């Protein structure tokens, strides 16, 4: 086949990839009908709504406040070892009523706040929006929430202190506010003091009716060290307990706060590694406590601290979305319109709740409007019809008064009905557009076909060599159907890569291009490095918290960390100093390279000092202590500009000089310096290890298909060595704001991608150097090196996409669809669009073209 045709098919395949991905995504991520406008009391025939017991609310959110196992060293709220002793005394006295508020996945802050305030169940799309924070569609300003209801009452001002997510969700809602950013997770105290300092003043004011306090410190401690290990956990809980006590004292003594309700809740929990986002019991079981001296009148108190519970289900469990309607009843406003939560009072309130739920259900299922039987509902086959039928029964038999003999039975029936509808609607919060799913898959299949046609001649000319590449692609596609292999994807890549590297040794041994002792030495080094990188970051689900090099070893051996980091910078520096800037003399080019390295090192030290001060030790600590009054943002910008200038100079000089390879080498080194900058300090030595691996692999004299296979395997396994996984919680945002002061979605997006796909980007650039070397060696006789390489990569990407899409479609009713397969789909979007199309195809081809 003529190369022209192959190029055509390759281009077609790559154009089809984004089309397939977007079509499938639009059908896969659910659309949820929502009603706009503010709810009003419906005019029922049963009198005016009951008088609300409270008129003010203090809503205190403690990020990641979960109930924790009683045998752990640090406990959260309800168990014996917790720091929340005052809150527990309130529970036993009856002034506080505790619950476990079940949070649905995804358990990250923004969707959880949405659930608490609107009473609806956020869609998975909110996960993406949580990162794209500027997106206005995520704002709740136009939706009905209990905040909007409190504002509509116009009985007082709204105040908000704490996590600025609230300010983003509710722009222009609050009259007084002080938002804190949750950017530096190493900040345990500042974020909370920023909130606490406002509390005494506000308790003295009587002009507000809603006060929201969102504390981040507890979550930060969890992220940093996990809930059990950190010595900061108990003091932080005591601090939070102290604030509860402060507010309670004010409520008990101050006239103006007499009918104030304090709601203490967590937005989500955390697992034992301190992360959240998934649906493990620890993550989905935040605490929820209603506190007021008034509650003593209705509650006798519960035993507290509570006994150990296996799955964190202390006291009674409610849905997190039930908070909104309950607040509605307690504070006297109608239930927010999109609410799916339930509350527990009598006829009146239940009926109003049911009416509101009905309007949401009717927006989805029209059968609720039509007439039909109201008896013997169990005989109907469809659960929707059954519920509609039951509703007709309920609405026709409303008891007239509390003395009605059917009263209790009616209450039970309607409560049961509400629960069933809640379940129904929660599951249809994930409606799939199946035709779109099928179209997306068909397009992906066509892309796979045309990629195969483009790669066909390469494969058939050397079917033995390429059979392994094909085997990897196919088994990866099949693997997508097994949830454990998706969760533990790193094992597949480590397993295959190690075997491949050994095979390369065996192959080279046969070819005898190198002295066999030298070859053995270099191959063993490559394998040993591979083994070290495997253990660098424990990732996946099963062994997530186990000891590893980055988080356990370096934590105890700070000097070896900084020695390795220094070596990485030196390796990069010597390469730049000797090979780059060749138009200057040696001294000048060394000076330039040193300046670059200094800018990079000082930025990294200052950043690490802010981000993870616990890692600082020895000289690094001394150097970071030298405050120069330059902010992190400025330092990062200086470094990025310097890198940009060096890159521009290198490119410009490559056009006048005819020496392609040193130039490409310099671009590779500059890129590596950028990647080092975008990595956490503990991951920086990985780039040194990859550098050594690359140096050794370059001498193995690989053929084209071998280069492609090596590139694929090392791209994927290096992603996981940096701590990546298929879980949303493993996205590393710590370097996403380097040099960005405001919120700039493009810049933050690119920086986030670079800091999470560091390894794959390194290997793309390294592959390019290998391909250029191959081109030089064959003297241009081998045609279409780049075409063949990209065709093979495209075969893998399309094959993986077909697998992921098929798995997501077939398993769309599977238990793990939201926790395993949806995040996997998001990741494969990033792999195919970002890593494949932009980095491998875009940047890779450009570099190859520049070098050739």
């Amino acid at each position, binding site marked *: 086949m003529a190369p022209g045709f192959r190029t055509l098919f390759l281009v077609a395949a790559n154009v089809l990839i984004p089309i397939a991905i977007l079509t499938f995504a639009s059908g896969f991520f659910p659309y949820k009908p929502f009603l706009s406008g503010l709810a009003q009391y419906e005019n029922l025939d049963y009198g005016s709504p009951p008088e609300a017991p409270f008129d003010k609310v203090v809503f205190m959110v403690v990020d990641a406040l979960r109930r924790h196992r009683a045998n752990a060293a640090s406990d959260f709220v309800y168990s014996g070892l917790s720091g929340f002793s005052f809150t527990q005394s309130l529970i036993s006295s009856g002034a506080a009523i505790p619950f476990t508020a079940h949070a649905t996945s995804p358990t990250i802050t923004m969707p959880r706040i949405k659930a608490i305030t609107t009473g609806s169940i956020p869609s998975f799309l909110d996960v993406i929006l949580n990162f794209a924070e500027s997106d206005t569609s995520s704002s709740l300003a136009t939706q009905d929430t209990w905040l909007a209801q409190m504002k509509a009452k116009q009985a007082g001002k709204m105040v908000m202190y704490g996590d600025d997510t609230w300010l983003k969700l509710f722009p222009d809602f609050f009259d007084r506010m002080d938002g804190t950013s949750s950017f530096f997770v190493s900040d345990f105290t500042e974020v909370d003091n920023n909130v606490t300092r406002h509390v005494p003043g506000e308790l003295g004011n009587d002009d507000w009716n809603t006060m929201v306090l969102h504390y981040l410190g507890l979550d930060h401690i969890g992220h940093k060290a996990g809930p059990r290990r950190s010595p900061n956990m108990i003091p932080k809980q005591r601090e939070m307990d102290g604030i509860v006590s402060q507010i309670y004292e004010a409520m008990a003594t101050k006239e103006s706060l007499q009918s104030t309700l304090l709601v203490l809740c967590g937005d989500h929990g955390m697992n034992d590694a301190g992360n959240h986002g998934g649906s493990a019991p620890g993550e989905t079981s935040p605490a929820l406590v209603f506190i007021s001296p008034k509650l003593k009148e209705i509650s006798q108190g519960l035993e507290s601290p509570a006994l150990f519970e296996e799955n964190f289900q202390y006291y009674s469990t409610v849905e997190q979305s039930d908070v909104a309607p309950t607040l509605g009843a307690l504070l006297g406003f109608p239930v927010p319109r999109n609410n799916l939560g339930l509350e527990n009072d009598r006829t009146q309130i239940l009926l109003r709740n049911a009416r509101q739920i009905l309007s949401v259900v009717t927006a989805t299922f029209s059968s609720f409007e039509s007439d039909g039987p109201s008896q013997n509902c169990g005989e109907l086959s469809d659960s929707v019809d059954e519920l509609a039928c039951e509703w007709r029964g309920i609405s026709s038999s409303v008891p007239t008064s509390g003395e009605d003999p059917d009263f209790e039975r009616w209450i039970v029936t309607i409560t049961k009905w509400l629960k069933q509808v809640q379940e129904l609607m929660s599951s249809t919060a994930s409606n799939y557009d199946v035709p779109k799913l099928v179209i997306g898959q068909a397009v992906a299949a066509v892309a796979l076909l045309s990629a195969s046609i483009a790669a066909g001649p390469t494969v058939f000319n*050397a079917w*033995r060599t390429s059979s392994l590449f094909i085997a990897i692609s196919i088994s990866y596609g099949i693997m997508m159907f097994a949830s*454990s292999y998706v969760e533990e994807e790193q094992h597949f890549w480590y397993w295959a890569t190690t075997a491949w590297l050994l095979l390369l040794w065996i192959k080279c*041994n046969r*070819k005898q291009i190198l002295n*066999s002792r030298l070859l053995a030495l270099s191959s063993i080094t490559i394998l040993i490095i591979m083994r070290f990188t495997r253990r660098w970051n424990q990732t996946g689900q*099963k062994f997530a918290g186990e000891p590893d090099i980055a988080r356990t070893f370096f934590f105890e051996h700070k000097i070896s960390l900084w020695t390795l980091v220094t070596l990485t910078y030196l390796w990069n520096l010597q390469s730049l100093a000797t090979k780059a800037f060749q138009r200057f003399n040696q001294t000048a080019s060394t000076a330039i390279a040193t300046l670059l390295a200094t800018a990079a090192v000082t930025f990294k030290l200052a950043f690490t000092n802010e981000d993870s001060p616990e890692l600082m030790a020895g000289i690094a600590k001394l150097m970071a202590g030298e405050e120069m009054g330059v902010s992190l943002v400025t330092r990062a910008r200086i470094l990025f500009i310097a890198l940009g200038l060096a890159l521009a100079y290198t490119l410009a000089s490559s056009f006048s000089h005819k020496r392609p390879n040193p130039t490409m080498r310099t671009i590779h080194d500059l890129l590596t310096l950028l990647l080092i900058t975008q990595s956490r300090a503990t991951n920086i030595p990985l780039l040194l290890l990859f550098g050594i691996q690359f140096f050794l692999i370059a001498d193995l*004299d690989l053929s084209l298909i071998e280069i492609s296979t090596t590139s694929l395997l090392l791209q994927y396994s290096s992603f996981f060595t940096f701590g990546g996984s298929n879980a949303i919680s493993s996205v590393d945002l710590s370097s996403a704001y380097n040099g960005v002061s405001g919120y700039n979605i493009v810049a933050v997006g690119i920086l986030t991608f670079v800091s999470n796909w560091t390894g794959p980007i390194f290997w793309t650039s390294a592959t390019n150097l290998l391909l250029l070397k*191959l081109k030089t060696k*064959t003297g241009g006789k081998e045609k279409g090196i780049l075409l063949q390489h990209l065709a093979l990569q495209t075969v893998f990407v399309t094959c993986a996409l077909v697998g992921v899409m098929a798995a997501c479609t077939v398993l769309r009713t599977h238990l793990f669809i939201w926790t395993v397969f949806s995040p996997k789909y998001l990741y494969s979007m990033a792999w195919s669009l970002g890593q494949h199309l932009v980095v491998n195809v875009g940047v890779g081809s450009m570099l190859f073209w520049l070098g050739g």
Partner: protein
Amino acid sequence: MPLIDPVTMSAINPASQTTPVKSSSPIEVLPADLARIVSQVHPALLLSAYYLRFPSFVADPVPTLLSSLLPLAIIQVAYAAFCLPSTGSNAKAVKKGKLNGAKKTGDAPSANAFTVLFSLVLSLLSTPVLAGLQILFGAPVTTHLPHTLLSSAHLALLAIFPLVYVHGSDGNKWREIASVHSPIDEVFGGAVGCFLGAWLGAVPIPLDWDREWQKWPVTIVTGAYAGYVLGKMVGGWLLKGRRIEFD
């Protein structure tokens, strides 16, 4: 690989070096009837012994692996002594054996005893190397060291011992084996199958079934035994005399 592959160009040079090695031929099982029978019984014996020990292996890996080393060694020694031409005698022995095998086998029992001992020692010496290889392939390094060492000892007795018994310390032959380019026979086939099986044995470990047998190193050793038996049968019969080609 396509036409102008550097591989083929560079292969010209060492071709002259490797010519004598390339002439190496597959191992033939000794022609005596007893040898043929033992060779057929051997895999069945290995697998049924493994099957019988499996429950206690899952329950108590280290003691079981340790206590089954001696029976395994006996099985392997018996197999080698009855069926395989020992080193030194091999090249000529096989050729002569074809003419007059029955006479040859009874020739040098003392030499055989020495070879057996020598092969046992050498293959046990290879255990740390195999353990190192297992660690490179992802075996735990901070824990489970006895498990890894003992499973390596099993690998050594299964795969390395017959190879040493047959080929001795012939450097060229071993270079050929190290580059997996030896002609396939039941000894070499068994060894390749054993290592491939051990590698494939890692596949079920990450599954979330949480069974006892998913623990280190049960699946690896199981894969090694199954792979050895399969490789031995395929190597001694189906693919005999061929070589594994990668390109």
